[in-house]
């Protein structure tokens, strides 16, 4: 590549006219670099997202149960998680680096923080959505507090919980692209690399961006399907 002193043209694979001319979208490049760039980046992105949402849910759920049981905890929990949201994600990574280094952990801590802000209030709202008379009837029939939670409040909270998961997943897919500013991981990284070039290669930016959008939509559809399975009663028409 350009060692003979000629013009330096980055070698994007085939080096066909589409790539060398930096046309809008080169399908050939996508095929060539699926194996070494896009595929792994997509997989890393899925990992980043799934880990963040799973850990976020694992933290938000018990906190929401506590806030539901002891109402005066809701305000402080809510305020704390909202505080995280006010910090710009780029800055949050940098704030964490001195403590956790330039690591996967740093990225996940930031992503988990954002999922908390979405999941916690949604789960709390869901748990509160059982109408008073339904709770009264349940208690009057002799359900214990735990049975009211397990058999009444939680099932009725499912639509709100799945709704929260949908927002959390979609926004995490988007925010996770910024992880590339710290680590060579995820769909943000190809975009990040391309942008560093004096003339950013369009196909690389578009293909990674489109994959990120497709991932968000795909995950959302999956959760919509989950909702249909778990809450059959909301579909029952008169």
């Amino acid at each position, binding site marked *: 590549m350009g060692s003979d002193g000629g013009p330096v043209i980055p070698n994007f694979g085939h080096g066909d006219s589409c790539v060398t001319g930096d046309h809008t979208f080169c399908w050939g490049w996508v095929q060539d670099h699926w194996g070494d760039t896009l595929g792994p980046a997509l997989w890393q992105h899925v990992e980043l997202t799934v880990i963040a949402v799973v850990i976020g849910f694992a933290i938000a759920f018990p906190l929401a149960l506590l806030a539901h049981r002891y109402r005066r905890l809701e305000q402080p929990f809510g305020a704390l998680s909202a505080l995280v949201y006010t910090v710009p994600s780029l800055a949050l990574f940098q704030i964490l680096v001195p403590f956790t280094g330039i690591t996967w952990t740093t990225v996940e801590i930031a992503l988990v923080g954002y999922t908390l802000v979405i999941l916690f209030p949604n789960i709390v709202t869901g748990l509160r959505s059982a109408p008073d008379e339904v709770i009264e009837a349940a208690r009057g029939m002799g359900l214990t507090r735990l049975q009211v939670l397990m058999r009444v409040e939680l099932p009725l909270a499912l639509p709100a919980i799945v709704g929260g998961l949908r927002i959390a997943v979609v926004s995490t897919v988007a925010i996770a692209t910024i992880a590339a500013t710290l680590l060579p991981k995820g769909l943000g990284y190809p975009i990040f690399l391309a942008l560093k070039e004096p003339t950013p290669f369009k196909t690389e930016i578009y293909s990674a961006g489109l994959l990120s959008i497709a991932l968000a939509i795909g995950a959302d559809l999956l959760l919509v399907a989950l909702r249909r399975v778990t809450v059959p*009663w909301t579909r029952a028409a008169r």
Partner: protein
Amino acid sequence: MSEAAEIVFDHVTKRYEGRVAAAVDDLSLEIPSGAFCVLVGPSGGGKTTALKMVNRLIPFDSGEIRIDGRNIEQLPLTELRRGIGYVIQQIGLFPHMTIGENIATVPRLLGWDKKRQRARSVELLELVGLDASDAARYPSQLSGGQRQRVGLARALAADPPLLLMDEPFGALDPITRHRLQTELRRLHRDVGKTIIFVTHDIDEAIQMGDRIAILREGGVLAQYDTPDAILAQPADDFVAKFIGEDRALRRLALRTVGEVPLRAPGIAFAVPDNWVASDTTVRNAVSLMLELRADELAVKDGERILGTFRLGDVSSLL
């Protein structure tokens, strides 16, 4: 489980925090087993509070409530509640469960097997006038009247000896309410449970109850007696006002012409239109006489003539 329970309120008092007047003030009441007892009164009379004390949804300050001689505060809470059917105005069906699952709530808590739960749900659907196929539907698919039928079925599921009903028909339209009132009377005769029924509607109280407890503001028991005795002799001005000035007519509505002494057949035979069936209330018979400008009516049981009912004899019934 016993067929029907006897409930005793023994000097029960409840005061809500921050309020001067008691919600329930030294209430003593004996409800015999199998009775249909209506708690009635204006708002602030503590009738709902008194009802919810029985299944301990509301704690009380002093006194004692006994079910079949057992102090409710010494019974395990869940056991107490699972042994009492509970029906409320807003019904409170579980929206995420089918009708069948709703009805089987207490049987499930009691650990009945699935087959027995299902069989019981179907049996109860039929008892309350719904279709067995409704078991698979969700509450949102039913009308208000149908939902309250399910509420009643759910309360009866584990065959409890006592039913608590808090204005169960208050949110229904008049036609549906009347139909359910009639059916609940029939159901009470058939299943023989003790029922404590709260309403603010004195008409409903007189129609439904075989005993009526009238509570006045501050949770004081004003009178506790049969509907007929309360209409005949209101304990004080408050009760007299509460039951209304037409109490004589209301009393006439409590009896049918088949139940009162009749005269030997007289002139009514000559006028074939002037007759009533023996299950007509005295009140309606009097109304008919006024309308027909007749002094007497023949009373028939099917084709058989039982005797003659005379307008002049009405006052002797009061």
